[in-house]
């Protein structure tokens, strides 16, 4: 891409992709503190890991094709679902949108030249890579991969002979990386907004990242210390959680979910931010209820931090505590619903352009609604006791995490990738990829709800023959989903190599700041820091038309 506007080397109008700094070639990337390059480093690492997670998932589905063993033994199956969970949760969905798109676009959206602490930003990527190295070591070293499930429940996680120390340390280090990203974004948002950009003139994506970063800073240390204590317990036999040494396994569960439930919102909030960006652009309307969407992000962050024990209704708790946690669980649905209603209200009477990013955004709303509503079902105590150890939960988590954050990620890729690289993908293929992915996803995961309702236990290697028909449907769905993902990713990848060149700054007609800078963005983003006069979603022309029509 050398032929792009490379006129000067002071970093003002040369693209960040062509910029030759102190270091050349690959070193220019892995030693760069440019937030855009770090975002892309993250993207390469995380999407590769996503592929590993998908592969494990497909193998698990293949294993479950028949009620008895199909391709692997029970121990391997346990390791599969554990590593699948750890990779997908800690290595993919928790970091992906903040680390990739947050890093790349947050400073540009705020009108800043970089994040607050560029060197810390690079450090967080290296910590992520150390975590990756440790988890890969745990897979290949003798002893075998972790087989506890991604929840590491005590006492099995202190007893099992597998490489737990590597796994837990990896997650601990990832937590460190996550905290650093969080505090970096918080400081950036507080201190580096362009002149005139008040809190309520910020794009909603930055609001979402703001709420997410607070959760990251507040709750990640809790899982850090908890998992560290399990490591200490395994290595030095210090009595903390192990019941033979007086410890309380239920305390571990509390500590684990004190992080891991808010982590659900670390996972989903940035995706919601992406959707809040895409919907107004492709309906050319001001977002409906800006302040409500902004506040609901904070509401989700606050309530979401207080509902952790609904993961443990079957673990034993005081009745009064169960009652309170159940009530709070219902309450947390309100801010999420506010967002969904506001998005649909924004679409109403908009001039809809059904481009691939919007398709993924609409799929997000649909799938997330199913995931959210099934979540409310589990918030009810008496129902939860019956379904908590079944496939119903597995269906729910996949609808929320994959249907939500996964599709939010795909939407973000289709929305921002042309901006990042200056190359447009083939939109027709992207739409085909979308439909295959969407249909495959539903065939794969919807049967989980039925299976769970019929009593199919989760994490089970064997199952009763009467469940087989649903498992077969689901496994076929997994193949369709993989074909869809392959179409989507190959299309995006090919577009980077020989896609149509895009040089216009505003590719989709957006009103946020990233659409005012060159494509791909210059090294320092802005030659002059922009002055903000209007809010981020002022689609005046269309608004007038709508108003007239209403009159």
């Amino acid at each position, binding site marked *: 891409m050398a032929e792009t506007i490379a006129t000067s080397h002071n970093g003002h109008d040369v693209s960040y992709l062509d910029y030759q700094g102190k270091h050349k070639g690959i070193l220019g990337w892995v030693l760069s503190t440019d937030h855009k390059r770090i975002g892309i480093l993250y993207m390469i690492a995380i999407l590769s890991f996503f592929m590993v997670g998908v592969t494990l998932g497909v193998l698990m589905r293949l294993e479950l094709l028949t009620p008895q063993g199909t391709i692997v033994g029970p121990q391997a199956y346990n390791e599969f679902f554990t590593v699948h969970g750890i990779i997908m949760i800690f290595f993919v969905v928790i970091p992906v949108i903040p680390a990739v798109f947050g890093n790349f676009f947050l400073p540009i959206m705020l009108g800043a030249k970089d994040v*607050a*602490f560029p060197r*810390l930003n690079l450090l967080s990527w290296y910590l992520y890579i150390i975590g990756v190295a440790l988890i890969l070591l745990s897979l290949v070293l003798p002893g075998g991969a972790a087989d506890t499930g991604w929840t590491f429940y005590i006492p099995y996680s202190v007893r099992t002979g597998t490489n737990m120390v590597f796994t837990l340390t990896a997650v601990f280090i990832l937590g460190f990386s996550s*905290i650093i990203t*969080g*505090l*970096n974004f*918080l*400081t950036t948002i*507080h*201190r*580096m907004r362009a002149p005139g950009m008040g809190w309520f003139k910020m794009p909603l994506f930055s609001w979402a990242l703001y709420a997410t970063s607070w959760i990251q*800073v*507040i*709750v*990640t*240390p*809790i899982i*850090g*210390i*908890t998992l560290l*204590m399990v490591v*200490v*317990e395994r290595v*030095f*036999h*210090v*009595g*903390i959680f192990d019941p033979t*040494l*007086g*410890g*309380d396994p239920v*305390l571990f569960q509390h*500590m684990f979910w004190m992080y891991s439930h808010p982590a659900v919102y670390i996972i989903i909030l940035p995706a919601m931010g992406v959707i809040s960006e895409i919907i107004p652009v492709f309906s050319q309307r001001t977002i409906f209820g800006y302040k409500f969407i902004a506040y609901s992000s904070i509401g989700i962050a606050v309530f979401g931090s207080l509902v952790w024990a609904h993961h443990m209704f079957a673990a034993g708790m005081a009745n009064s505590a169960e009652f309170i946690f159940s009530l709070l669980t219902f309450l947390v649905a309100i801010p999420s619903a506010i967002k969904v209603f506001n998005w649909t209200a924004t679409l109403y009477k908009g001039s809809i352009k059904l481009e691939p990013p919007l398709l993924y955004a609409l799929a997000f709303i649909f799938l997330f609604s199913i995931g959210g509503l099934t979540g409310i079902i589990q918030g009810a105590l008496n129902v939860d006791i019956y379904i908590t150890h079944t496939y119903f939960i597995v269906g729910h988590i996949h609808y929320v995490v994959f249907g939500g954050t996964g599709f939010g990620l795909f939407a973000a890729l289709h929305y921002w990738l042309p901006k990042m690289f200056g190359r447009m993908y083939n939109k027709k293929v992207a739409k085909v990829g979308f439909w295959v992915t969407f249909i495959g996803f539903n065939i794969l995961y919807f049967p989980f709800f039925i299976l769970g309702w019929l009593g199919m236990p989760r994490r089970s290697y064997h199952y009763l023959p009467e469940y087989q028909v649903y498992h077969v449907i689901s496994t076929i769905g997994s193949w369709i989903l993989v074909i869809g993902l392959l179409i989507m990713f190959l299309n995006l990848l090919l577009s980077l190599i020989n896609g149509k060149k895009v040089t216009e700054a505003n590719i989709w007609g957006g009103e946020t700041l990233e659409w005012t800078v060159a494509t791909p963005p210059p090294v320092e983003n802005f030659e002059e820091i922009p002055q903000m006069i209007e809010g981020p979603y002022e689609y005046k022309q269309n608004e007038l038309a709508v108003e007239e029509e209403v009159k």
Partner: protein
Amino acid sequence: MSTSESVQAVAVEHIEEHVNRDDIRSRMGMWLFLFSELLLFGGLFIMYSVYRYLHQTDFSIASKEMNTYLGTLNTVILLTSSLTMALAINAMQRGKKGLSIFLQAFTILCGAAFMINKVIEWSHEFAEGNYPGSAILAAKPKGQILYFGLYYSMVGLHGLHVLVGMTVIAFMLVFTIRGKITPDNYVKLEAAGLYWHLVDIIWIFLFPLFYLIT
């Protein structure tokens, strides 16, 4: 590039650096980091409260094994070091570089004295057999095993923080000597001071929880 041009370039860079400098930003980053550190220890304090609630008497009995005199001495040492650290920053603000260097060095020495005391205490406990995995400790009631588990974890993690704090202040000492920390740019030293106060404040809670409970 001619010499005058390069001098000019350096000057421009220097001005830019100066304009981009934002001490509030640096402090905010540090405070957020300290906040997450507090929550890291917060997790341990939750574990302590739960187990203390479940094993009141065992905790009380086990705490009798602690050397309260050494604990008190360490509290005094650490509090003094916090004072000298604060004074070191103050000295830098008033432009007294030499005094600041002396006070920073004194703070590091206090940290070292604290760690030496800890080594004495721990070797005493180890000699008594009160260490994780020992047969003597395993034979004790479960509440006491938990007490020592928490003691070694919490005080150990705190000790680790003391070592980190000493290292950070040592760096600050070098920066001060080399003139990188100056009376109008001392935010690094301030951040190091904040970290040291965090180490201090955590000890202020650990001391009564492990040494003074009845």
